């Protein structure tokens, strides 16, 4: 039976465990960020934000440096560009994301070497070292603490941006922080899911939770639980049955099955 260790680059067994822990942390961050992205009606927009990593991945592959460093640079740069353009033009966040996404995808496809393109799109980079794991833990902690800190401002803004501003919430700053936290979450999962599936685990568990939740706390809790369940089951299925070089696609398929199950339960 094929195991991920046999397929992934870097066959250190310990690193495989690091990789799994990192995937669980990604699941937690994705469930949390996803629930607010869903409520902020940024689901489709969120999907394309993950593609912003592509040009950075392409440059990193070209220069033979860590692809995650390149992905991080273009993700954060893209997120900031989206935010800045929205403030400058006054147009919707969605349209700005669409514009930056189209440029990023075209640029990424043009500069990523053909042999690395599939890896950039679907994940499966080298397994993390101890330092990689620690950076992942730090990133996940920043996402969790950041969302918890922004939570009340986002809830007020979701209800009414005018009311939120009148209460003293800085909506522009909150939008920027959320975009950066979203990008950081995509970055944590980039090695598993690549640029193409990066946001799937952010979106699908949140959509599942919406079928079942009755308030914000239960929405966030269910979203995180579904995300962690999808990663655990997807990882296991990939190890035992699929044997793909990256567990990302299996994880996304499991999360889609969980979403389908939530539809049955609701109706």
């Amino acid at each position, binding site marked *: 039976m094929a195991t991920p260790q046999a397929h992934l680059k870097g066959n250190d067994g310990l690193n495989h465990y690091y990789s799994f822990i990192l995937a669980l942390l990604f699941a937690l961050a994705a469930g949390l960020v996803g629930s607010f992205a869903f409520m902020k009606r940024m689901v489709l927009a969120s999907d394309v934000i993950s593609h912003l990593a592509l040009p950075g991945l392409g440059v990193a592959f070209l220069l033979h440096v860590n692809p995650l460093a390149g992905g991080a640079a273009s993700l954060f740069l893209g997120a900031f560009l989206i935010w800045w353009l929205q403030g400058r033009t006054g147009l919707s966040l969605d349209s700005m994301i669409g514009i930056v996404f189209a440029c990023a995808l075209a640029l990424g496809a043009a500069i990523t070497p053909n042999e690395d393109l599939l890896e950039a799109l679907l994940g499966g980079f080298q397994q993390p070292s101890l330092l990689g794991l620690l950076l992942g833990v730090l990133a996940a902690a920043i996402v969790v603490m950041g969302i918890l800190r922004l939570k*009340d401002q986002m*809830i007020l803004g979701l209800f009414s941006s*005018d009311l939120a501003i009148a209460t003293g919430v800085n909506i522009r700053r909150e939008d920027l922080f959320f975009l950066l936290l979203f990008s950081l979450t995509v970055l944590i999962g980039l090695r598993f899911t690549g640029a193409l599936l990066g946001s799937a685990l952010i979106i699908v568990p949140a959509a599942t939770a919406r079928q079942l939740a*009755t*308030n914000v706390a239960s929405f966030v809790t269910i979203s995180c639980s579904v995300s962690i369940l999808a990663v655990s089951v997807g990882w296991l299925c990939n190890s035992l049955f699929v044997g793909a070089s990256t567990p990302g696609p299996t994880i996304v398929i499991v999360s889609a099955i969980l979403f389908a199950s939530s539809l049955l339960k609701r109706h």
Partner: protein
Amino acid sequence: MNSLLSVENLGVSFGNRVVIENLNFQVKSGDTLAVIGPNGSGKTVLLKALLGLVPYTGSVRWSDTVRIGYVPQKIEADRQLPLTIRDLLTAKSRFLKLGANDMEAACREVGLSFDLLNAAIGAISGGQFQKVLIALAWLGSPNTLLFDEPTASLDELTEERIYDWLHTTQTQRSLTVVLVSHDLSVVYRYANTVLCLSRNKICIGPPREVLSPQLLEELYSAPPMYYQHIHGGNAAGTSERE
């Protein structure tokens, strides 16, 4: 008494369309200012400018002691959101770093039933939704309330209760109120100053002095339906049909 709010040369434009131009007025602590005018005269825009929600020219100066509660005319909230009334009130309480009891106190004061706290925002009636907005505005004990047609689309009984609450609270707490209303009987009953906005005329003063039938006709470009019945001396409920 010092002004709580001082507005000088206020102007608001959207592109080439001038909505408010060269507007000057002051509001003293404890005043009730009613803003009236025909549709499109800039009443809601004025409130938004006072709150800094739209860009403007001129100056809007609030006293340092002001704590504002705002009840908007419309809420664009997605009623499909998994947001309960408790989620909303808790979010504002936490953001303002209020104590645990403040939320319950605000609900009690505006008559919002505790049973309603766990209801989703999409599952409550228009009247209940309006009470939620008022409770949300009242949270944090504001000394100034900005009401933008707070009773639009509500039945008369609910409207009456809301204005009674507002009037009682204002008397007890020396609350300052800036109120947008289409209902002239409300203006006569509760406001001590009225600000009339229209494209060609701006006027301000006590309702009995300012709201003449001629002015109302100019404002609304139609024969006035209500005017103040001055002889008799009772301002409340004395409007009558011509």
